[in-house]
């Protein structure tokens, strides 16, 4: 082992934590899990990770569904308007027919 390695061993020698370190660890162990700070509690694995493409696909489906629903609504409205126009036209024709019949008499 050369001088540098000897110096490294000296430099990297173990250090002690705070004197109350063990007491604090044991106090945290006695705490209920829900009371513990969760800073580094678990390896940072998320239980459920939604991939971005799933979110994007869901958004596309919602938007496409909304557009389709809007088109369907517009179709119904147009149909209702056509039916109303035909009803009015029919009323007018009936009215004219009645007048024509009266005139003939």
């Amino acid at each position: 082992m050369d001088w540098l390695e000897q110096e490294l061993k000296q430099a990297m020698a173990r250090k002690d934590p705070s004197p109350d370190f063990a007491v604090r660890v044991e106090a945290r162990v006695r705490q209920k899990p829900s009371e513990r700070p969760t800073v580094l509690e678990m390896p940072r694995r998320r239980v459920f990770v939604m991939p971005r493409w799933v979110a994007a696909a869901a958004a596309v489906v919602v938007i496409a569904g909304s557009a389709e629903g809007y088109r369907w609504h517009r179709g119904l409205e147009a149909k209702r308007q056509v039916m109303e126009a035909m009803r009015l036209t029919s009323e007018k024709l009936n009215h004219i027919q009645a007048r024509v019949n009266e005139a003939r008499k």
Partner: protein
Amino acid sequence: MTGIAIAETAGIEFGQLVREHQSMVFSLAWHFLHDRESAEEVAQEVFLSLHKHLGEIQTPSHAGFWLKRVTVQRSIDEARKRQRRPKIALESVPEPAARSAPRDPLLSEVLRRLIATLAEAPRSVMILRYQEDLDPSEIAEVLDMPVGTVKSHLQRSLALLREKLERRGVGEY
């Protein structure tokens, strides 16, 4: 039977493990992070994790191995999370005065800081080698890394440190 009860049956007592290994765990984190407060937090979390996994620990020596591995992993996680590797840039490490005597405290600080500037893998290898006095095969086992890679990290890191120090006029006495 709980994990803690199983461990206690095997003669492993949590409080005893904390007292026995606290310096090792804290020092690994401190040498890795070069920040006392963060090192204590990481060390506490490592012991809390040990408490949860106590049932998996078979022997006291297994506990030591488990603690080394988890401490290095947690230290790497913490360093990545804070994205502050290294806290001190290599160029900003103060130049030590030429050595006049062995065990120069300034040189020790410079060496610690130079090690803190290494990338994660070589830093972990150097800390386990010189803090824990592990040989390359033991380091390879802890870090789950080929022995050849460990030896390569050691050689390259030593060469780099030697070059940095010699450039600053610090050499063999």
